[in-house]
């Protein structure tokens, strides 16, 4: 397979998405939700987590233990490796304790 000559168009455009936080992730981040411009390099859920950790100490504390972070893309469960696609809403939360 050869690389196509045309570069993907989104390379230079930072994507704007809504991030939503629940339970102790929300408490540590200090926000319920926010609109952010994702770096173009963020392609998966895990990429977003790792980028958020660099923002400040609150995010770093919220996302310190990556194994405890669950995520949803546009309100559907996603795994760390799930690609963001065209998701407009990304939610992060601890393991669920309903029922």
């Amino acid at each position, binding site marked *: 397979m050869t690389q196509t000559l045309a570069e993907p168009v989104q390379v230079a455009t930072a994507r704007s998405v809504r991030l939503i936080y*629940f339970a102790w992730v929300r408490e540590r981040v200090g926000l319920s939700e926010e609109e952010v411009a994702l770096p173009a390099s963020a392609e998966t859920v895990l990429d977003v987590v790792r980028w958020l950790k660099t923002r400040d100490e609150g995010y770093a504390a919220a996302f310190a233990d990556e194994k405890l972070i669950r995520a949803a893309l546009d309100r559907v469960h996603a795994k760390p490796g799930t690609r963001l696609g065209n998701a407009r809403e990304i939610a992060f939360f601890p393991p669920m304790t*309903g*029922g």
Partner: protein
Amino acid sequence: MVPDIPRDSVVGTDVITPTIRIQRENFDLATEVAALSAGRRDIGAVVSFTGLCRDEGGTLRALELEHYPGMAEAEIARVAIEAATRWPLTGLTAIHRFGLVEPGEQIVLVIATSTHRRAAFEAADFMMDYLKTRAPFWKREHLADGTTGGWVEAKQEDDDAALRWS
């Protein structure tokens, strides 16, 4: 005269529409069972699960239930449709409360009805395992001594229980 079509033959082919509610208010078991079974003569089994808030030996004053409003109903509906596809159900209801719930109060209700008991038991059991591990709800403890305790941690046994169905 239009001949009666035996109800069983209809049930076998159509997938039912589950009733899903996410609400702050309490719910009533008898009302919900009646909504699924009143006037019907084709139901052989009704299984209900009611989850209540425990006082943890007197240490708990209340549970605070946080949820993801946009996702909770959609996720429970997804699981309910899967249950209605796997088992021959005549009805399925799932209700989950949010907000502050005190010991002795109801938190969650699942009702599954079917012609036969195994389907009703298994579907209700399945729904509860998935509500525990996939419905976006989080519980925080408010303690009897007036302080706010921590967030309830997810249990490995709940994940293990959910794996029984895969």
